C-alpha cells in the first residue's frame, strides 16, 4: 500500500526539483534578474493576472478559440474519417493528400486563410481547425480500418447488415483511436491558436499576452502567460483522457 501511495507523489519530485533549480538560478544570478524573475514573483503575477488583470480574460479567449476550432474539426473530421475508413479503397485514394497536408506546417497556411477570412478570429480558428481536422481524420480512418476482422465477421454471421456492422462495430472499435486523434488535435489547435494570437493582428488571447509582456519587458507577466498556456494544454489533454476513460472503458483491454 505504502509503495502505491508513494508512486502517486512521484510527479511532485520533478516539479519540486524544477522549482528548486529555478530558485537557485535566481539566487546565484546565473541569468540577469530582469530576464528571470523568481518563482514567487512569477506565481504572484500569474495569480494577480488571472483574477484581477488581463491574463484571465486572455486565457478564456484562448480557451474559446481552441475549443471552437476543435469542435469544428471534430464535427467535420469524425464523419469524414468514418466514411474514408469504411472503404479501404477510398482511403488509399486520398491518403497521400491527407498525409501531405498533415505534414505541411499549419502556420504556412496563415497567409492563405488571411486572404480568405481576413484578420479576425475566423482566420485563427479556421487554421487551427484545419490542422486539427487532418490529425483527427487520419486517426479515425485508421481506427475504423483496423477494426478487428473477427469482430466484423462475428457481426456478419449474426446477420448484421453493412450499416449495422458500421454503427455497432466499426464505430465503437474506432473510438480509442478517435480519442488519440482528438487529443493530438486539440494540442495542435492550441499551438496554432497561440501562434496566431501573437502575430495576426490580435488584441487578446494567451499568445497576445506573452508577446505583449515581452514587448513591455514585463517578465513575470510573460512567464505567467507561458505557464497559463502550458496549464491549458495539459488541462485539455487531461479532459480528453478523463472523458475517454469514462466512455471508452475497454480501451487497451
Amino acid at each position, binding site marked *: 500500500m505504502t509503495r502505491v501511495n508513494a508512486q502517486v507523489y512521484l510527479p511532485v519530485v520533478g516539479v519540486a526539483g524544477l522549482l528548486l533549480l529555478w530558485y537557485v538560478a535566481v539566487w546565484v544570478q546565473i541569468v540577469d534578474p530582469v530576464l528571470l524573475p523568481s518563482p514567487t514573483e512569477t506565481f504572484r503575477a500569474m495569480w494577480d493576472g488571472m483574477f484581477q488583470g488581463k491574463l484571465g480574460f486572455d486565457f478564456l479567449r484562448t480557451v474559446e478559440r481552441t475549443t471552437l476550432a476543435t469542435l469544428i474539426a471534430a464535427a467535420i473530421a469524425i464523419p469524414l474519417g468514418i466514411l474514408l475508413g469504411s472503404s479501404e479503397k477510398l482511403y488509399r485514394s486520398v491518403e497521400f493528400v491527407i498525409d501531405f497536408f498533415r505534414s505541411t506546417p499549419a502556420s504556412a497556411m496563415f497567409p492563405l486563410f488571411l486572404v480568405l477570412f481576413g484578420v479576425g478570429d475566423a482566420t485563427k480558428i479556421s487554421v487551427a481547425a484545419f490542422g486539427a481536422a487532418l490529425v483527427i481524420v487520419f486517426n479515425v480512418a485508421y481506427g475504423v480500418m483496423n477494426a478487428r476482422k473477427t469482430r466484423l465477421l462475428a457481426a456478419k454471421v449474426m446477420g448484421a447488415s453493412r450499416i449495422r456492422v458500421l454503427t455497432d462495430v466499426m464505430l465503437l472499435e474506432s473510438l480509442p483511436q478517435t480519442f488519440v486523434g482528438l487529443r493530438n488535435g486539440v494540442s495542435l489547435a492550441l499551438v496554432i491558436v497561440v501562434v496566431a494570437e501573437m502575430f495576426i493582428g490580435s488584441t487578446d488571447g494567451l499568445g497576445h499576452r506573452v508577446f505583449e509582456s515581452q514587448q513591455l519587458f514585463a517578465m513575470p507577466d510573460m512567464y505567467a502567460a507561458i505557464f497559463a498556456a502550458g496549464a491549458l494544454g495539459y488541462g485539455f489533454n487531461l479532459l480528453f483522457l478523463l472523458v475517454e476513460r469514462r466512455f471508452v472503458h475497454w480501451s487497451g*483491454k
Partner: protein
Amino acid sequence: MDQGSGVLRSVTSGRPAGSAAALRSTRPHVTVRGLSKTFGTSRVYDRFDLDIPRGELISIFGPNGCGKSTLINLIAGLIPVDAGEILFDGQPLRDIKFGYVFQNYREALFPWLRSIENIEYPLKLMKLGKAERRERTERLVAHLGVKIDLKRYPYELSGGQQQLVSIMRALVVDPEILFLDEPFSALDYEMTLFMRDQLQRIFVETGTTTVLVSHDLEEAVYLADRILLLSRGPARIADFVPYEAARPRSDATLSEAEFVRVKAHCLEVFQREVRKG
C-alpha cells in the same frame, strides 16, 4: 415468426442422451456439391463434396492450412464460393440462423457491451424487444446452469468464461447449425477439459447440428459423431470416420477400446496425408 419460443422449444425439450442417433434422418442437413475456392494462386477446394447429417456433431481434423476454417466460413456464408453449391435441407442458403464461435474470443466479443448484452446482441439484430431478449437470454443461462456474473464486461472475465459467453451468444438464437472454430485452443488445459464437457452437454440437450474444427485429435474424436479428416491442397475427404460411443462420454471413454481404435485410425490417416505433402 415463432422465433420467440425458439430457445424454449429446443433447449427445454432437451432430448435425452442417445436419442440424437434416433433422429439421424437419412436426409443430410447440409449438402456441399462441387465446391471450389481459390485464394490468389492457392486452390483450397476443387470440386469438393460433403454431406453433413442432421443433428450430428462433426469434428473436422486436418493439417494446418488445409482449409478447415475456410470450409465452415463458406458454409456459413461468410465468404463467397467460387463455384459449387451449398444446400440446407436441399435448399440454397435462405434466412438460416447460424451460431459461430471463434477461436479468438477476445476479438469476437464486443468489449463495449456487458456480457449479457453480448449474448442478447443477435436477438437485437432479429428485432426482438428488450423484455423478450432478456427473457430468452435468462432462460438459456438458467438452462445451461452458467454461473458467471454476466453484468461484467467480457474483459473482466477469464478466458473460459469469455468463450462460454461466446457460445451462449451463438446459441441464443437457437441456430440451425453451430460452428466452432478451434474454440478451446486459447484456453488452458483444465479449462479445455471443462469446456469440452460443457459443449457435449449443450449438444446432447439441444441436438443442434454442430461442426467443430479442432487441432486436438483426442478432443475431435471425444466429441464427435463423425470425424471429417481433410487432406491438403486442394482439400479432399481423406476419411469420414463414424464414432458411435454413447453419450454422455466421460474420462472413462478415453480408455475404451473403440475410442482408442478410432483415434489410432484417424492418426494413421492423418499421418499418411501429411507424408504425401
